[in-house]
């Protein structure tokens, strides 16, 4: 972090007091959050494939090995089930491992440990043990990556009670949410939208801070339609909201930030206010998290709706190779068409 500290400048913090900030990307924010938490808490260790000497294939752990040494930054053998299984053992006995899965498409070998153990250990030992650990993984498409490098299977973890699921969409949120995830007493799957790892920079306080899990944000307030998203899709929704603004339609963008625990209040309040809603995610439509959100809205705000909630999602197909991926990924125009449907109902 100190490498870029010269870029830091003083700006007014949220509470009005001056805070030292620096302009960083999401990838750098991940690294900074890890470094700060490692500094704060000697129990925090980082482990995974290529996270040490190489600093991670996305450079999200760059410099940590040099700073904290090989006992706290572990280049592991190439074995996802081994990584998560050992992290569970460590977490159950007093460490706070932050394990990296290099890409979400490679998490499957570890699903046994994640779902059969990490998610259940608190419950099945009636609280005798718990697994305070974080599993970070880059997810999502849009970078022309090879096969199996673009998956968005967050729904798999959301259907496994016991796991918290966090998806930041900005550098600031990344810093604050990752810090909270590491300090959390329960296991957290932390999904990093690789498409926007370096897409933009944002001023982020240099000092440690947290953003609580389970609190959504509203990056674009509005009155007539609610656009709900997380991760890279938040930016797609913001683009749509700006386009709608030009047409005189006021859209509110809700960035869920945490999918479990879910900030129902912010979501429902927004939908009750606007009466229209479009849910956007990259994952396949069927049994995607969007379906859960639609159900929730129907259960709690049906009579406030002017039109059925629309979903803009990936198709119910395998994620296409690079040449066709732009046809798969939700984009601004698809969101605009869905919004139109809610007005023409």
């Amino acid at each position, binding site marked *: 972090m100190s490498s870029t500290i010269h870029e830091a400048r003083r700006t007014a913090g949220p509470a009005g007091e001056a805070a030292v900030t620096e302009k960083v990307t999401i990838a750098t924010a991940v690294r900074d959050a890890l470094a700060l938490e490692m500094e704060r808490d000697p129990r925090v260790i980082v482990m995974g494939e290529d996270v040490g000497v190489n600093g991670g294939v996305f450079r999200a752990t760059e410099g940590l090995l040099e700073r904290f040494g090989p006992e706290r930054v572990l280049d592991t053998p*190439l074995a996802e089930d081994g990584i998560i299984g050992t992290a569970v053992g460590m977490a159950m006995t007093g460490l706070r491992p932050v394990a990296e899965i290099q890409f979400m498409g490679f998490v499957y070998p570890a699903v046994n440990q994640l779902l059969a153990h990490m998610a259940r250990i608190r419950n099945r030992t009636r609280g005798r043990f718990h697994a305070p650990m974080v599993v970070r993984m880059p997810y999502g498409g849009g970078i022309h990556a*090879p096969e199996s490098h673009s998956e968005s299977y967050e729904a798999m973890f959301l259907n496994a009670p016991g796991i918290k699921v966090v998806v930041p969409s900005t550098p600031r949120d990344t810093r604050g949410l990752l810090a909270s995830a590491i300090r959390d007493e329960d296991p957290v799957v932390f999904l990093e939208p690789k498409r926007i790892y370096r897409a933009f920079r944002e001023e982020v306080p240099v000092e440690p801070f947290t953003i609580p899990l389970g609190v959504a944000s509203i990056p674009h307030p509005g009155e007539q339609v609610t656009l709900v998203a997380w991760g890279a899709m938040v930016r797609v929704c913001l683009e749509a909201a700006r386009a709608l603004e030009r047409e005189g339609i006021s859209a509110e963008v809700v960035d869920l930030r945490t999918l479990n625990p879910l900030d129902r209040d912010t979501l429902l309040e927004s939908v009750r206010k606007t009466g229209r809603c479009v849910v956007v995610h990259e994952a396949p439509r069927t049994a995607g998290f969007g379906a859960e959100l639609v159900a929730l809205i129907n259960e709690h705000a049906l009579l406030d709706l002017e039109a059925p909630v629309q979903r803009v999602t990936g198709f*119910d197909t395998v994620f296409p190779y690079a040449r066709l991926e732009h046809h798969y990924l939700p984009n601004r125009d698809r969101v605009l068409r869905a919004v139109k449907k809610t007005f023409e109902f």
Partner: protein
Amino acid sequence: MPRKPIVTATIERLEILSPDGSVDEALLPELSGEDMVGLYREMVRMRAYDEKAVKLQRQGRMGTWAPLKGQEAPQAALALAMEPEDWLIPAFREHGIMLARGVPGHVLYAYWAGDERGSAFPEDVRVFPIPVPVGSQFAHGAGVGMSLALRGEPGVAVTFGGDGATSEGDFHEALNFAGVFRARTIFVIQNNQWAISVPREKQTAAETLAQKAVAHGIPGIQVDGNDVFAVHVAAREALDRARSGEGPTLIEAVTYRLGDHTTADDAGRYRDPEELARWQERDPIPRMRRFLEARGLWDEQQELVLTDEATAWVEAQVEALEAMPAPDPADIFRYMYAEMPASLREQMEELREEVSS
């Protein structure tokens, strides 16, 4: 009751062709001059194909590519030792042997250029598609070996993987199944010393990868993987054993990845340039050339002709790749199920409308 050793295991290492081109005559396999030259020609073609792909990637005409440079010998040796009825279950750095087993060059390029048609090999090509999840192919290899025997078909399954892949549980489960069912399967580990930035010593505390066979009750051997003859001998023995129903074999071919992990990687971040230089001296191609020249099987003129041939062949693959019509977006849906469900048809129509509007 005394303690006594009950298992002792020995792992052999086989070397035949030295970097200076000299050979151990007693161990040299009985190959015709034509076959020996053929091995060399294959390796040169593989390298030309590989180097072209790296260039294409730099020019924005290719997606991420995993260079095979330096690992030609195991691929050429296995290709020569295998029979037409054998199956190849590759990892993702096996471009060379995939070509040698009949995958068209432009098709394989298409895969790496981000096109699903690049995994649609011609019907008569007994090669599995590239598996991206590391280590996941080994069990397929065991399964194919079992399947051939169960269906009473001739043939052996040859599956490849890297040193890093031996850390995955999949690898051990596959060896175990192959051992228990005496599968007609050969496991070839291309130990190129690195799994992205992680060196071989950090994958396992074991001295060799070949010895992983011991715990699964199957034979294992280490060979100089830059020595095409050593690999060929080990491959022949393993194939014969499998064919005669004596079960699987693990071959560790010790080689080196002369390039970056992929075109998205920069090995300079984690690798000592001196190590790279040492391995460049052990390059499998010049050593084979020295050998052939010393035997009078090869000369400068032939080399020039081969270089031209290889370049022309590679250029033809690039042309064929770039002549492929753009993929049809509807293909995203067409191959999901034998019959397309109505809900998927709807999604396909949505996309069609969007694309045509």
